[in-house]
């Protein structure tokens, strides 16, 4: 399985990043991509400050990608996760999977995304437009439930 995994501060180009998953191959029938975007859920939100655990974040995402590869016959998987200051409307995360058929590509992408939400060591603090620090974003029960269904 082709595995592309990167953590970065900079924005990414989803189409360009996912191209290597299917390029030069004739056995890929499905490429699923998901882009997670910073949403202005709270009034006055200027940006999210995303903190991560360098070292563990890469290792943990790698473990989840390997688990996806063991569970579904996917030819490739990609995860790009940003950290640092991210404004509403900007992309935070890119997940992509390539497979012979769409079923396993969709399932593996959803599995990856669900595990990223609850198991990848990232935390989000709100920065408000009036200059003050907002709260840390807490875990959502829906996200916990989404991860549990894969067990």
């Amino acid at each position, binding site marked *: 399985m082709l595995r592309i995994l990167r953590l970065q501060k900079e924005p990414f180009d989803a189409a360009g990043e996912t191209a290597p998953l299917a390029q030069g191959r004739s056995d890929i029938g499905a490429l699923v991509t998901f882009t*997670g975007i910073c949403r202005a859920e709270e009034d006055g939100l200027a940006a999210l400050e995303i903190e991560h655990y360098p070292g563990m974040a890469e290792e943990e995402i790698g473990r989840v990608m390997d688990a996806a590869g063991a569970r579904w016959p996917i030819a490739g998987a990609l995860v790009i996760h940003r950290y640092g200051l991210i404004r509403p409307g900007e992309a935070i*995360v890119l997940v992509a999977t390539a497979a012979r058929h769409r079923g396993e590509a969709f399932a593996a992408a959803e599995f990856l995304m669900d595990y990223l*939400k*609850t198991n990848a060591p*990232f935390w989000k*603090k709100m920065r408000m437009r009036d200059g003050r620090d907002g709260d*840390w974003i807490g875990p959502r029960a829906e996200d916990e439930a989404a991860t549990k269904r894969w067990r």
Partner: protein
Amino acid sequence: MRALYFAWVRERVGIAEEEIDPPASVKTLADLVAWLKRRGENYGAAFADQGSVRAALDRCHARPDQPIAGVEEVAFFPPMTGG
């Protein structure tokens, strides 16, 4: 061993990282949390709601009953909100 703190756990402890040397009686992750809590009010505040603090041993998610012998890096942090 090296201890790392992230997000609001880091803010409450007041530092991001430190070297710690717990006594031999501290055998599990739960023992380590109890030992840290006795070191000062800042640790007490960080671990007040123990159910909402997660931990990793050598960069793998860990449960409170896991032994810490031989561990080089322990990390404490709130529930993760990736993606």
